[in-house]
């Protein structure tokens, strides 16, 4: 059954959803008349062929080599809107109901849109959550103090009053059990979102996440899908102590069968939340304790971010800096200094921690030939370590210098403020590393 979805604009959003309140959406999009947006719509069929609307002006399409076996990303550039449209096709057997979906471009296009609203990152997460809960009655949230208390970081505030105790569940402090219960419910078709009050607490649920969440789809020969979203804040905060400053992405990255994404702005937080909920695969969404109060303007219109895609934060020529989550901001701070010193770094927020978006990363490496990875994980066995290996394996010929990976120290995060600062990568160190790399 081939279903064809059409391009940007109100039509796409309505076609994407079945039960979404399309009236709300269409009225908004018709207000912003289609004549303003002279785009050609790409049409992607389920078999992977792409037809560009012949009326499209100055449209370029590049088909990329398949670097990742389970995803094909197609980039189309529309100069009229200066946007990049990403089309992702997921192989049929993993997603029998989902074919090509059109996702919002990931670069900052907000300035060109008239209808935006400003909010904080935790509110963006809540918006995404609420929209998905409205759209699909199978979506439910479970976690400690998510209901009546409103969530320890206010992500679920107000949801319990709106959806009731059965859809927003306050659990006792029993992570292993309620994560397992979430996975069990997901096996039957429910779509629970399991919140760990701090990612570190999910270590208690490691067995459930590794063995059941990750492996059930495989070991059952494809019978069960586990459309669960496991989310929570992690990372080094402000003197939270060793046990509450963990970076679980290092530990989870080896588990086959799960996807990991890290959000870093309100825009991608909402987009990734929605994409994670709609995904048939188990997704672990890593938020960061220190990023919840970031403010940004995001579109009023519904949008989703691509789970497997990285985000180009700042194009450049001299060096590729790969980062994610909170380190993005340290990198951008360092970038200011670097630009003043005459460097032109290309900053990419990798966003997808498993699998890596080797397409965007590869293109960047081919352009700049130098790579710096800035991460918050510890040096040993972190995301940076895996990324270094992946880039070396695939793009070794394009590198002019060894890959430099700046990570946190291999120590438990100390409580004292000064020590904690030295544990984590600081902007000054990023500047030094780039200078040395570009010699």
């Amino acid at each position, binding site marked *: 059954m081939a279903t064809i979805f059409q391009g940007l604009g109100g039509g796409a959003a309505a076609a994407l959803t079945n039960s979404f309140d399309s009236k709300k959406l269409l009225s908004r999009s018709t207000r912003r008349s289609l004549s303003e947006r002279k785009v050609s719509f790409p049409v992607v069929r389920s078999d992977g062929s792409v037809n560009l609307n012949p009326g499209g002006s100055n449209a370029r399409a590049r088909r990329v080599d398949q670097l990742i076996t389970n995803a094909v990303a197609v980039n189309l550039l529309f100069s009229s809107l200066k946007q990049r449209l990403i089309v992702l096709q997921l192989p049929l057997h993993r997603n029998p109901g989902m074919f090509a979906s059109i996702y919002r471009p990931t670069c900052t296009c907000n300035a060109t849109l008239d209808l935006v609203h400003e909010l904080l990152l935790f509110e963006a997460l809540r918006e995404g959550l609420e929209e998905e809960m409205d759209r699909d009655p199978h979506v439910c949230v479970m976690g*400690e*103090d998510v209901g*009546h*208390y*409103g969530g*320890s970081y206010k992500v679920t505030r107000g949801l319990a009053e709106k959806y009731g105790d059965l859809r927003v569940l*306050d659990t*006792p*402090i*029993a992570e*292993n*059990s309620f994560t397992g219960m979430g996975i069990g419910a997901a096996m039957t078709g429910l779509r629970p979102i399991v919140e760990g009050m701090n990612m*570190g*607490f999910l*270590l*208690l649920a490691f067995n459930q996440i590794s063995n059941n969440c990750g492996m059930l789809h495989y070991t059952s020969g494809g019978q069960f899908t586990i459309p669960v979203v496991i989310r929570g804040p992690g990372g080094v*905060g*402000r*003197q*939270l*102590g*060793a*046990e*509450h400053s963990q970076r679980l992405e290092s530990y989870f990255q080896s588990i086959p069968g799960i996807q990991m994404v890290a959000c870093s702005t309100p825009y991608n937080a909402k987009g990734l939340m929605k994409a994670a909920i709609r995904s048939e695969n188990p997704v672990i969404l890593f938020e960061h304790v220190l990023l919840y109060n970031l403010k940004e303007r995001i579109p009023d219109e519904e949008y989703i971010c691509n789970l497997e895609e990285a985000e180009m934060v700042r194009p450049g020529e001299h060096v590729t800096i790969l980062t994610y989550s909170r380190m993005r901001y340290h990198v951008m701070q360092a970038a200011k200094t670097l630009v003043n010193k005459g460097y032109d770094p290309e900053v990419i927020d990798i966003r997808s921690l498993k699998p890596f978006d080797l397409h965007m990363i590869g293109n960047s490496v081919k352009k700049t030939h130098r790579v710096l990875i800035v991460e918050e994980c510890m*040096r040993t066995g972190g995301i940076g370590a895996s990324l270094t290996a992946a880039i070396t394996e695939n793009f070794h010929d394009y590198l002019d210098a060894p890959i*430099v990976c*700046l*990570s*946190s*120290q*291999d*120590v*438990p995060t*100390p*409580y*004292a*403020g*000064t*020590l904690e600062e*030295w*544990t*984590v*990568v*600081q902007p000054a*160190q990023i500047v*030094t*590393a780039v200078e*040395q790399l570009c010699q």
Partner: protein
Amino acid sequence: MALSHLKSSSSGSNFLKPLATAFSLRRPISTSTDPLTVETSVPFTTHRCDPPSRTVETSPQELLSFFRDMATMRRMEIAADSLYKAKLIRGFCHLYDGQEAVAVGMEAAITKKDSIITAYRDHCTFLGRGGTLLEIFSELMGRQGGCSSGKGGSMHFYKKNSGFYGGHGIVGAQVPLGCGLAFAHKYNKDDAVAFALYGDGAANQGQLFEALNISALWDLPVILVCENNHYGMGTAEWRAAKSPSYYKRGDYVPGLKVDGMDAFAVKQACKFAKEHALKSGPIILEMDTYRYHGHSMSDPGSTYRTRDEISGVRQERDPIERIRKLIVAHDLATEKELKDIEKEVRKQVDEAIAQAKESPMPEPSELFTNVYAKGMGVESYGADRKEVRAVLP
């Protein structure tokens, strides 16, 4: 709760004359160790065991030390509140005020050879185990003079030489550790017990029941103490536990429910529990207590309970007030003298804070110390990979 009745001891001490105030012009505060008995506020509720007596043996000296210790704990926690708001303490800070009777009563019943392990609400327990105010405030402010050299923080206080094993951030994780401590006591045959403290929120952790099962099978001298302050952060006990009778949840393990705001009830229960554990294995104590502050400094504590409830408990069940009334009723000190003690305590706390502020921040090299016990020559680098570099000592 009703005031304790007063019963004179049989050895004929004179402290109960109701008109003794007429003779008390410049009498020094009594520090006598003559026995004195008080009754607990309520009888003990039991599960699979016989209750200990409601009558508790004590002495004027003990009463006054209870008062002083609890006043110190209370003052310390309130000072920590102000320091947190002044951003000298950061991160997580969980305060114990309201629950002091549990720490003080427990210490009175045991020795430093017995082990105590608790969760993150550990400032007062640490103090009870012999920690100093200076160590506490230095650690809270992340200074070198702290009990964990500034590297642990509020949730990671430890004192090995007096049997205090922490100080743990992950809810419930300390209970299996506590059972392990008891295992070591049994293994070493040292006639000591381990007290594993946890809260009503942690009581729903699976690892607790696993550890309890093993402890019961192996007859380990462990006492599981549930400090039931009725709220697991924002969730009331009836919303988290199908059976909030935590003392019964051990099923095959006996249990005792204790008024946790009455230091003497706590003392009696802990004494009873220690005897039981050494003879017949694990026992659960449920301390019915209350915290005045929210779960931590980032929780106002008023979104899930009413201010009336908090002030009601403070008026009727406050542990320090109970001791104060007992002391005055037994004529061991006047109100003014008790107030003087409180002033002295306040001064001590302020001095400790001032001294702690002088303590320096840890050296950069401290980042790499104590990762391993013995140097293996493992190299660790600063984030820049070049300049800051150390071999893990």
